[in-house]
């Protein structure tokens, strides 16, 4: 099994922490994992993106040039990352913030109103968890359990209530098909 993921959005949307969380969960699941952040000038421009690989085999390169899955959390990310998705791959779009619609027909598109769903649970800050929930459900690359287990390791200062809310958001995300 090999799953190469790119996650992209604004700084502050939890893009980097989502990537770290996926990698950590993959590691706890006994997979080979890598996480690689875009640390370039893009970081300064207010957008963030990262590559995550979850694999049953050694990971050769951490930079995912042709992702199996792309999670797009804001408008500018769609134009940038839609072309990269592997044919037959998955494109998850945060439809709460992304108004444009993708043009590609050779990939699976999943519109998830991440911010709206998160807001309904209490805070838009967990929109990234909604997206991860949808990713887990669609790909089966990981279990929600593994992500829940990784949370205290990654969000070291988060209160238990917040972690619980995160899990709820993951489960909510898994409901979108």
């Amino acid at each position, binding site marked *: 099994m090999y799953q190469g993921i790119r996650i992209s959005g604004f700084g502050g949307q939890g893009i980097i922490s989502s990537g*770290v969380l996926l*990698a*950590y969960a993959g*590691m706890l699941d006994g997979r*080979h*994992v*890598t*996480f*690689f*952040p875009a*640390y*370039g000038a893009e970081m300064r421009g207010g957008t963030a993106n990262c590559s995550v690989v979850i694999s049953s085999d*050694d*990971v*050769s*390169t*951490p*930079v995912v*040039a042709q992702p199996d899955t792309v999670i797009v959390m804001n408008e500018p990310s769609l134009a940038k990352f839609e072309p990269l998705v592997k044919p037959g791959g998955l494109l998850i779009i945060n439809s709460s913030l992304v108004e444009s619609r993708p043009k590609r027909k050779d990939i699976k598109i999943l519109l998830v109103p991440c911010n709206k769903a998160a807001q309904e649970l209490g805070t838009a800050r967990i929109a990234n968890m909604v997206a991860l929930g949808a990713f887990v459900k669609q790909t089966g690359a990981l279990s929600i359990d593994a992500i829940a287990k990784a949370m205290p*390791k990654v969000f070291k200062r988060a209160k238990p209530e917040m972690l619980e809310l995160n899990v709820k958001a993951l489960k909510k995300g898994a409901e979108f098909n």
Partner: protein
Amino acid sequence: MGEKLLMKGNDAMAEGAVRAGCRFFAGYPITPQNEVPEYMSWRMPEVGGAFIQAESEVAAINMLFGAAATGVRSMTSSSSPGISLKQEGISYCAGADLPIFFANVVRGGPGLGNIAGAQGDYFQSVRGGGHGDYRTFVMAPNSAEEMGNFPLKCYEVGEKYRVPSMILSDGTIGQMMEPVEFKFETVDAKKLPIPEWAIGANPGRPRRMVGSYDLREGELEKMVLARAKRYREVEEKEALWEGKMLDDAEIVLVSYGIASRASLAAMKLAREQGLKVGWFRPITLWPFPKKALTDVAKRVKSLLAVELSLGQMIDDVKLAIDCRVPVHLHARPGGVLPTGEEIVESVRKALKAGSKEAACCR
């Protein structure tokens, strides 16, 4: 030992150095190695060591010169432009036989270049870098885990032969997170023996001098030749490498650091396509694993060097195998990581070219 941690390469290297007994760190901010001084700024006080944010890379390496002279395990880190600034100090350390340890998390160059991972500093690392006749023990990790485990080896080799040692990494390995296991017992810095040459409080023993000069006629040559003897010993005993699928290979990809991971992807892809491709990775760049690579060259039709530069290591490949077989080059300078697919393309071209159009001995 034992526990797997998900760590950035830079953090793993800093922690690995601490566990290896490092108790002095001086550095200056530069991307993409900032995690190292940031990590050391809180970790050093925790273990009773010293951390200094120096006013420049020049000052940092000279602080190391002083600290290493007292016998403590020391470290500085930087990225390409900063490492250029440190070269004078590294030369002085080599000339004073001080086993300093430093890391270059390489970025695209020359000049300010960019901040992406690159391998353009190979020559600077393995040929000395600063002025004068000297060598640095150079290790090239290709994973976050190796970033964490190589500092100990650098200290051990550096101290044994009294040479500077370094980790030649790059922005990608520095920035990526991977599971890391520290595969050694944490070193108790207090139990490390104080070297017989270290300066410091000196009640009752003859005074000691640390320095790199001797102006008396003919004396400097003796000093350099004595050092060269140790260099030969390092070359004989300390070369490290790893290989995969070498037994039946017709062509072997030779690459180090992050390029070796791109090459590994290429090898797997090529094998799926029925191409007999092997993989050879120097782990130490100085000493270069000459003998091992020569043995490989005896069995294959050609080699393909894969580098994130215009092609620098390829010179050592050719020297090592004495141009026994053609050596081709897949080069991506300026901070670009090649894909497995494009390397396989180069493999096909190389196989087609045969020996006549070889890039060897250009």
